[in-house]
């Protein structure tokens, strides 16, 4: 049982031994936690720890495989988002889901608009109701403004107001400050304090430990789908939580450069960024040498994703210079990047990287149809040969190479993407979140494969928010904070806590 400042006896939410598996991943292993009305409860853990799965179970998106969830002592029998919402469980996502062409009031009161004589919508009354609600939480938003015209922070507030109008008892905030600047974050914190006073239970999912320690009464730490701790924040400190999140599970792979110098491995420079600056990035310098694996890490929005986009010709609005193999590199499209020998594996493999109904072979060879063509026609025999070579090489497990990739597990899908990079004959690989959403075993395999690829002379740039994971297989780590290079480490000589501290900890706060 959790303790909390209001001292409520009966927990608002009880999750009992929640277990959930997906193909290839055991996402939650008998996780239990409680949350009381008026309590702010933080849910923390690295990417892939199971936070979002737990949130999805509570909010009715997934039904748990076993275990039960109780709200005010009543078991939730049906798991649908609507049912959860009707019971008073509301989720506010990073990108608030609203109807952009309706007004703030219409969004807040959606489906419950006041009507005159039950027919005509009473717009004036709707605006009054909304204005009153917004005023109660000191939100300065015009109820008549269309949501499309609002910025991300305001949309988030509207989404919260919408939940409150429906008398949400439990509000789940998923990375709520990811898109907010310091001032807006402060306003959100004030709002959360108000919610606490109103007796709303808040489940606060965040990477930012500082915020967590400032706001939360209690904290639940997940790691690899396991509950590591669920206790009051009093008597805990940030370092302890960092240690709890980190744990230890995989062994570091061998074959990393032992020179221990942050300047690299002494080989030629494969990729160089000089003074790269955009809206997000500030004067970023970065070098990756042949045969080297370098990681860029930082919280979501710190700039890693932006660097990947620039390198793959998806964003051209930057100043500064990029060199590939020593010569200037300004790709306009992914196609040009691939021709220059750079291949990017996107962050969300299933969404952006693979064609789900196309076979494993078809996906692998898609990057270079010319190699498998003869006289302008595809040679299915060549396709099979090429695909089989990479499937064996990367140890991809599939029923056959003709299987649609959608039937593969996350780890194997990730490997198909790496196979694409090989088929493209890329010398520089940019891998976004290469181990996200895959299980421990597949992670270890991907680590090994990446090392092998680097061992053959390729330069690999890993962009990942999973510090603990990347420390196991990269040579160097570049920490980004607020679009700036906050520090650089030799992976072997640093620790998870040291890097994490630089990306989320107190030291970097003033800098941004």
């Amino acid at each position, binding site marked *: 049982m959790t303790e909390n400042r209001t001292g409520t006896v009966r927990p608002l939410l009880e999750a009992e031994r929640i277990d959930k598996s997906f193909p290839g991943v055991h996402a939650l292993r008998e996780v239990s936690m409680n949350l009381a009305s008026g309590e702010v409860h933080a849910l923390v853990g690295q990417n892939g720890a199971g936070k979002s799965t737990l949130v999805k179970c509570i909010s009715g998106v997934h039904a748990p495989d076993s275990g039960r969830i109780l709200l005010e002592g009543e078991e939730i029998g049906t798991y649908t988002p609507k049912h959860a919402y009707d019971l008073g469980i509301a989720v506010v996502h990073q990108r608030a889901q609203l109807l952009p062409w309706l007004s703030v009031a219409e969004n807040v009161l959606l489906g419950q608009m006041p009507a005159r004589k039950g027919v005509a919508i009473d717009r004036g009354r709707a605006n009054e109701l909304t204005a009153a609600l917004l005023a109660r939480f000191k939100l300065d938003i015009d109820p008549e403004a269309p949501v499309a015209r609002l910025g991300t922070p305001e949309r988030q507030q509207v989404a919260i107001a919408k939940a409150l109008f429906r008398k949400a008892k439990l509000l789940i905030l998923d990375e709520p400050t990811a898109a907010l600047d310091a001032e807006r974050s402060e306003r959100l914190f004030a709002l959360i304090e108000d919610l606490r006073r109103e007796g709303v239970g808040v489940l606060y999912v965040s990477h930012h430990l500082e915020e967590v320690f400032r706001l939360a009464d209690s904290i639940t730490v997940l790691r690899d789908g396991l509950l590591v701790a669920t206790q009051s924040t009093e008597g805990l400190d940030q370092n302890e939580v960092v240690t709890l999140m980190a744990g230890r599970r995989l062994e570091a792979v061998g074959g990393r450069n032992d020179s221990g110098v942050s300047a690299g491995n002494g080989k030629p420079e494969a990729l160089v960024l000089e003074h790269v600056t955009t809206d997000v990035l500030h004067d970023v310098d970065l070098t990756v040498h042949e045969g080297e694996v370098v990681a860029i890490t930082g919280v979501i929005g710190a700039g890693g994703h932006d660097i990947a986009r620039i390198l793959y010709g998806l964003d051209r609005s930057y100043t500064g210079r990029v060199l590939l193999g020593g010569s200037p590199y300004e790709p306009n*499209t992914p196609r040009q990047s691939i021709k220059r020998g750079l291949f990017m594996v996107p962050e969300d493999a299933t969404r952006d990287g693979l*064609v*789900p109904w196309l076979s494993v072979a*078809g996906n692998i060879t898609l990057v270079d*149809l010319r190699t498998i*063509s003869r006289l302008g026609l*595809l040679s*299915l025999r060549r396709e099979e040969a090429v695909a089989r070579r990479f499937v064996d090489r990367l140890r991809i497990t599939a*029923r056959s190479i003709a299987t649609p990739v959608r039937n*593969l597990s996350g780890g194997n899908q990730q490997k198909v993407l790496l196979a694409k990079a090989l088929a493209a004959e890329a010398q520089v690989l940019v891998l976004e979140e290469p181990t996200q959403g895959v299980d421990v075993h597949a992670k270890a395999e991907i680590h090994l494969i990446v090392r092998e690829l680097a061992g053959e002379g390729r330069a690999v740039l890993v962009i990942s928010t999973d510090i603990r994971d990347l420390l196991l297989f990269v040579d160097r780590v570049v920490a980004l904070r607020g679009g700036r290079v906050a520090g650089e480490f030799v992976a072997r000589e640093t620790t998870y806590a040291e890097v994490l501290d630089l990306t989320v900890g107190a030291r970097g706060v003033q800098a941004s």
Partner: protein
Amino acid sequence: MSTGTHTETPGPTGVRLPARFRNVDPFSLWPIAVMVAIIVVTALRSSHYFTVFNFENILSQVAPLGIVTMGQAVLLISAGLDLSVGYNMAFASICTGLLIEHGQPLWLCIAAGVGGATLVGFVNGVIVAQNRAHPFIITLGTSILLFGLDTQLTGGAPVDDMKGLYTAFGGNLPRGFPFFGLPSLTIPLVIVVLFAFAFLRWTPLGRRAYAIGGNEEAAYLSGISVKRTKIYLYTLMGLVVGVAGLVLAGQINQASFNLAQNFELQSIACAVIGGTALFGGRGGALRSLQGVALWGVVQNAIVFAGLSSNYQQMALGAIIVVAVMVTRAQR
């Protein structure tokens, strides 16, 4: 094979399937099964039904639709579609027909008709590729524009003598081996079907159509030039539509603005009935041909059942709905 965690078990080691020959899901052959059932039932009820003449009749009725459906299937696979098909076919026939009326050589007339339709396809492709608007609305616009153009060109009155085209497609092939007296438009149908089959299976462009339709973002990130691919695909569609338009005009010996009304929706329906996904990524030439065959057999069987053409519409409508439900259930 490694011991990586996975949801699939490695297949028996002896079985080595060629990459593209996926196991055909027997379930996806349901249109053939339904068709056979209808043929058996109708044949039992009517002694005139199961004759060579009747099946030739069905074939000549659906051949132009079959040709267009092949093109439509390719576009659907790429998550596109073309609603200007009907009036573009008419446009092709009118270009050709007017030149025939002016006594131009037949090759020039045909080139003008096919070329005109191909140009329309190219324009569709450029607009679809450049704008992120849905091809539905763009080709609907082209369709209405072409309707006006077709009517203007003919002054509303059809061209009634297609001369050489009628000779080519109005009759039947010689009896005996190898043509067996089939309707002569079987030849263009077979050519287009084989072409579509080969295109989807063995050409890089066909493969790109699957990739774009399956996941446009992934295709782009794989270095595929999405815009150029779309332009090629719509241009090819224009070519196929041109061929279909002339074949139909030759068959009925007429070129007019209402030559091929509803062909756009019928071709989409046939492709979807056959198992081509409405929103891209999946489908094939032979599968879509199943839909055309079922379409023709149903239309014909309703006539044999002595029912009015209103029942044809009802039956065809019902088939579309069933097709969508079957495809959904398969997922």
